């Protein structure tokens, strides 16, 4: 007990000296590490974001009807049409459920409040969550792409650069929606309910139940302006025709800006 040496009283107190960058970087590294551990130890997000779309991909890949080229799909197979839809599924799961649920539970528990009494700004936890969920999201897209091409004979993406851009813009458009859910939900249960209520309609417009190629014009018009509809459109074009058109990319950028502003405006730390 005598060896306890906690105080730094002998040092003078400098005024308002910002935390040195190496300390801040190391702190962010530790936060990311612990968030990653939590994601791994409570793998609901991993199952929903990676497992389910991958499982659906394999099931669809085994259905003979999905292997036939369809005139109504612009000459591609149903399976090919589902590749970007399932990629969007993974992105949406992670952004709409994977990001807000832990953040809201941290607020409920007082984790964010506790952090705001340390020299480290609590938004680093948001940033860490975003980093981790998006690493998983990118992994999901890559895995879906590789499995679809290598195991089920889907064509390789026509415009890899376009696909990278589409995925990046899709993430940028979806993530702030998840952060806004985290901002408005008071409990993690509420976040989970709001996340699901957002996820399923958006997935409808992404074409999960009715691929975009089969949607009536009215639905397709709506789909074009939903974040997941735009994401699927951008990714599908990159995979099957070439560099995506500006429209879906602009729609997603719009979501990024508007929801980014709202999330920032309404986010509460306690």
């Amino acid at each position, binding site marked *: 007990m005598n060896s306890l040496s906690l105080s730094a009283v002998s040092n003078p107190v400098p005024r308002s000296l910002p935390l040195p960058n190496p300390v801040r970087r190391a702190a962010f590294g530790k936060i990311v590490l612990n968030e990653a551990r939590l994601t791994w130890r409570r793998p609901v997000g991993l199952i929903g974001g990676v497992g389910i779309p991958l499982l659906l991909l394999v099931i669809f890949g085994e259905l003979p009807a999905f292997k036939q080229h369809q005139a109504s799909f612009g000459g591609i197979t149903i399976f090919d049409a589902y590749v970007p839809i399932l990629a969007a599924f993974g992105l949406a799961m992670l952004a709409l459920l994977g990001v807000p649920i832990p953040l809201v539970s941290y607020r409920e528990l007082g984790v964010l409040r506790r952090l705001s*009494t340390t020299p480290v700004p609590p938004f680093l936890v948001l940033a860490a969550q975003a980093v981790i969920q998006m690493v998983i999201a990118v992994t999901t897209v890559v895995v879906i792409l590789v499995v679809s091409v290598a195991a089920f004979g889907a064509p390789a993406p026509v415009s890899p650069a376009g696909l990278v851009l589409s995925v990046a813009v899709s993430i940028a458009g979806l993530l702030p929606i998840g952060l806004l859910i985290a901002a408005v939900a008071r409990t993690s249960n509420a976040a989970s309910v709001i996340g699901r209520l957002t996820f399923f309609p958006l997935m409808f417009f992404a074409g999960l139940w009715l691929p975009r190629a089969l949607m009536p014009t009215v639905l397709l018009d709506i789909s074009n302006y939903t974040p997941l509809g735009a994401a699927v459109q951008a990714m599908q074009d990159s995979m099957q025709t070439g560099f995506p058109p500006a429209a879906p990319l602009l729609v997603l950028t719009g979501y990024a800006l508007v929801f980014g502003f709202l999330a920032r405006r309404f986010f509460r730390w306690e």
Partner: protein
Amino acid sequence: MGVTAVEIEHLRKTYGSVVAVDDVSFSVTEGEIFGILGPNGAGKTTTVECAVGLRPPDSGTIRLLGLDPRADRERVHEIVGVQLQASAMPAKLRVGEILDMYRSFYREPADVDGLIEVLGLAAKRGDYYKSLSGGQRQRLSVALALVGRPKIAVLDEMTTGLDPAARREAWDLIEDVRASGVTILLVTHFMEEAERLCDRVALVDNGRVVALDTPPSLAARARGGKTVRFVPSAPFEDRLLSELPEVTRVEREARHMVVTGTGELVNAVILTLAAAGVTARDVQLDSSNLEDAFVRLTGKHLTKDISKTQDIIKEGASS
């Protein structure tokens, strides 16, 4: 008097129409253990939340070693370690992982191994937070408050929910921490804790400081002094004692003498009697405590309206 570690002047904080803190002022000297004692809802927690910069005060000034907790927020967070009343950790992080992360937030952190050892958490290092008992969580929370080697530690209801043995261990720890030079601001509603640990105590009620002094002085104020009861070995004149400056009243109750007074009353009485060849037997010192002081000053009991945990009820009954 040394350096002023904490200076709060006319702090006021309202939530809508509810006045949480009406007018609170006190200052804490470096190296002191300063207690804020009061019933639930007195404004204790709001006071420390304002003090550490978690909430902006409506009016009044707060300085921690000369720094403003809002304007110099970053620096204040480096020199002040906080243990909050309602704050948990993610269930599936291990004790070591949490400490290691918090350690990385500070430029000159404490040695985690030593801290974990002192707090009796060494065996729990690899355990998930969710598997810790209430007492272990409290100790981890204290560890997190100290891991940055703060100059000021703010501990809010540190021993609430601890069993009596764990509570005494926590008190020992606080004394050790103070011995290393840390100023401690301790929020509590346990009299025993304040009397045992605090150099000075602010009694808070309805958002105001109703009294501020050392625990013995507050207690003495409650009854106008302390009382010594004893059986004298031989008869003597009341005047022998009543002329002492420490003595305010001398009474006889059957065989017992009851002497009321202030200051070093016991020493004065016993030495005077000894000089007169009288021995005092069965000496009982009936000193009033902080609870008495509180009742006298506010007209209410500290723990009366609290039934939050079994533990508090027990504490209330025994004090």
